């Protein structure tokens, strides 16, 4: 009952006006046999104080990146979020507005989205950006649909094995009911080989999808992968980490057709996987096949510059089953946060964040690889994330490291059995040298703990004391 404004008097007056006696009468035109004749079986109501205590207490049972030092990545990163992002995006006028259907009453949101689109173009070098999609993976799926529609090819979509496994799953889910098949080009040495890619692409291929930096952190030969797609008339879709674009060559310089990415790293919190921010930008000529909302510049009746939702004839509320996509909202708030983030960081701040992440990741990688029994799994260049290979059980190792206060990395066996001896480690600009040194010590200690635990058994067996030593 927390937020109902009508008083009992109001209730009476209003019911009287519509000729009813009780609140239940409001539903008397619903068939009796459909109506629920018991209260819902849900927990009892809590006051604000109780809710704060109860839910706050449940949340306190989590032990996240605030409590353990976070080296987890895999598409979601613990980058620094400046205070200004929370303060401004939290303003009720942004937070509690909806899709800007009435432009005269929504210029704040519309201009912010127009600026977001511009910032994404500046970052990627592409000509047009939409107003955002749900997350990186669904943006990749939307790009794939675009490519199928633009090329009119229904044979297959080719995806690099180094694309995030969950993204590949999403592409597969959406293709399952449709004609094209999803073909995976295997990785060699942590990247995909452009010749293998070229061999997989044929003249019924709609798109080549690759990620750069890839899921394992490595840098792909993006220009060669794009060339492999274009050689057979397929479109090239590049999945980017927008943070990397402070340092790395923009996707436009690879000649790519559609760019997608996960914008969580731009001022958005980890929040257990969502809501996140799907980025999608492309060549100008494809704009009418773009999914999602797009804001455009125009003038009002007095010639004054202003902004509106543009190109709505692509969309589901007008085109229905012929629409470019079923999407009807963007991730407005997350796009706003990304814009505020980029505005306050500027070109130098973004460069520093990207470069610090790279330098710290390399420092961590060389320090960890120096521990006996650990090595870098792949030889190539990487951005802020890398893979360590170990003879020890990664899950046990990471559990031990966690007990020492570090979210030490992701055991890759959960995604790929052939990487069961590998750990993916991400380092952002937030990590200090002290924290990285601490992680290295934690790995060393975990390593000796795990070896010590297995070693006595060997010794016991060797000396024939197993039965004596057993508890």
């Amino acid at each position, binding site marked *: 009952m*927390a937020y*109902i404004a*009508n008083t009992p008097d109001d209730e009476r007056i*209003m019911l009287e006006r*519509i000729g009813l006696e009780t609140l239940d009468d409001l539903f008397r035109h619903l068939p009796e046999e*459909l109506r629920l004749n018991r*209260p819902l079986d849900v927990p009892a109501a*809590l006051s*604000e104080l109780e*809710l*704060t205590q109860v839910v*706050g207490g*449940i949340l306190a049972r*989590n*032990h*996240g990146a605030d409590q353990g030092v976070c080296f987890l990545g895999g598409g*979601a990163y613990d980058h620094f979020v400046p205070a200004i992002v929370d303060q401004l995006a939290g*303003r*009720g*006028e942004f937070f*509690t507005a*909806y899709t800007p259907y*009435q*432009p005269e*009453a929504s*210029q704040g949101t519309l*201009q912010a989205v127009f600026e977001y689109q511009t910032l994404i173009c*500046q970052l990627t070098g592409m000509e*047009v950006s939409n107003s955002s999609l749900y997350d*990186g*993976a669904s943006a990749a799926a939307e790009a794939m649909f675009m490519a199928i529609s633009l090329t009119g090819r229904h044979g297959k979509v080719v995806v690099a094995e180094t694309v995030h496994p969950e993204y590949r799953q*999403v592409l597969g*889910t959406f293709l399952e009911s449709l004609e094209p098949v999803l073909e995976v080009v295997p990785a060699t040495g942590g990247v995909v080989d452009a010749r293998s890619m070229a061999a997989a692409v044929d003249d019924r291929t709609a798109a080549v999808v690759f990620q750069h930096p890839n899921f394992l952190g490595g*840098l792909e030969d993006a220009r060669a992968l794009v060339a492999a797609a274009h050689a057979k008339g397929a479109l090239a879709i590049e999945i980017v980490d927008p943070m990397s674009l402070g340092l*790395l060559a923009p996707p436009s310089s690879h000649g790519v057709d559609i760019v997608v990415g996960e914008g969580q790293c731009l001022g958005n919190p980890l*929040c*257990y996987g*969502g*809501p*996140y921010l799907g980025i999608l930008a492309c060549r100008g000529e494809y704009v009418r096949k773009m999914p999602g909302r797009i804001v455009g*510049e125009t003038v009002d009746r007095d010639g004054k510059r202003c902004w509106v939702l*543009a190109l709505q004839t692509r969309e589901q*509320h007008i*085109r*229905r089953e012929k*629409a470019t996509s*079923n*999407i009807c*909202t963007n991730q407005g708030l997350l796009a706003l946060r990304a814009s505020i983030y*980029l505005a*306050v960081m*500027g*070109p*130098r701040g973004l460069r520093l964040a990207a470069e*610090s992440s*790279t*330098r710290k990741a390399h420092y961590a990688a060389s320090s960890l690889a120096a521990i006996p029994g650990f090595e870098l799994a792949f030889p190539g*260049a990487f951005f802020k994330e890398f893979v360590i290979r170990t003879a020890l059980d990664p899950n046990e190792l990471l559990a031990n490291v966690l007990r020492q206060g570090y*979210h030490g990395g*992701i055991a890759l066996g959960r995604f790929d059995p052939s990487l069961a001896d590998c750990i993916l480690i991400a380092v952002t600009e937030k990590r200090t040298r002290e924290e990285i040194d601490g992680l290295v010590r934690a790995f060393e200690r975990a390593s000796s703990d795990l070896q010590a635990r297995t070693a006595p058994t060997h010794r016991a067996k060797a000396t024939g004391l197993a039965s004596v030593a057993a508890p």
Partner: protein
Amino acid sequence: MYKLVQPPLLFESSRAGRGTAVLPPCDVPDRPLDELIPADQQRLTPPPLPELGELDVVRHYTNLSTLNMSIDSNFYPLGSCTMKYNPKRNERLAALPGLLAQHPYQDESTLQGLLAILYDLQEILAEIAGLDAVSLQPAAGAQGELTALLVAARYFREKGDSRSQVLIPDSAHGTNPASAHLSGFDAVTIKSDGRGLVDLEDFKAKLSDQTAVFMMTNPNTAGLFDPQVREIADLLHARGGLLYLDGANMNAILGVVRPGDMGVDLMHYNPHKTFSGPHGGGGPGAGPIAVRDRLAPFLPAPIVARKAGGEYYLDHDRPHSIGRVRSFFGNTGVLFRAYCYIRSQGPQGLKRIAQHAVLNANYLKALVDDVYPVPYDGPCMHEFVASARTFAKDKGVRAMDIAKRLIDYNVHAPTIYFPLIVSEALMIEPTETESRETLESFAEILLAIAAEDPETLHRAPHTTPISRPDEVKAAKQPVLSWQG
């Protein structure tokens, strides 16, 4: 009195060399960058982002925000969007590190609090739906629709049944046919009858062994509860089809009728509507789906499960699952707010939401329907659709003009020109969190506008920082980013 002004674009305020110190210098031993990243992989020039001071950015966005109408500042009766109050208590909880600082790949032992909440939410959403199993994964209502249709497609495929059609009423949201198309089905339109309900004869005529799913919105987009739903479900089930509910209008029936009891087999929720997630200027939402037992094996993975010992875990071992529709768990931040909202209401509170949402809509309708006729009349649910067609005919005043004029009176416009089955539609949803005074004041405004001269309405709004934008120009010569 200060004036609302449009700030210049961020890019126009940029000055070379301006900036804000946010990050410290890098503290690990320096190595030449080219040793780390090959030179040909590096940017040659920095991205041309704007250069601004922190105060520039603060003023910019603060001024921009004042150009918006929002629930916090205005009555916002945008039909179909359920623009109810977004409780501040949920925001404070949602800002706690126990939510915000949780990485999706953390060890499950470090996530027991959050997984408990998500598990409970699955159970609660199943109970409210009267269905058996829930996936919290879909990122928005439209993605929930698509996910549910993929679940249906997989269900039929595993039965060796190759049905090709999804039936959709002409009053449905545009997302329904778009989702049907994306999931590989053909969308077949079912007419509405003279009452604004499903035309049962047309439904029967189009129902066949090719019918996979009938997508129903009930209450429908005209704000009417379709009492034929059980009969429709029975006819559909007899032919082996599934009944889908677009849950956009769940606010009207919380604790009153359960979709499962209507014969619904699968549905999506819009927790940002029904359970009051802030709409954020167009998102984020979430689109959890609920299904009957026999469809549960096909839900996306993972699902939150509980071991015998009470420990929560993510169940990825779902061999019949359609797979994933997005990365990571779901829009946890939106789902968390829905959980807080439901916990604040309890069983009686949830039912009172429906009662007062319906009371407010019927009361408001009674105050205005003499002047703004409601073509499909009768008791409405949480919203009603009035028509401005008599104004259009008599005075040349269209729904658009009324919507624009409302802004001058400091209220947001209703949804207009939807549903498509009502000409000059004004779709009005007051929600339960508005008071009688607000409704009465809105009714007075609507009646006052009805008496205004057409020229005033055609030129409205008069008080906003901009007048009506030229949408044709925006479509014909699209300018979608700052051109410098």
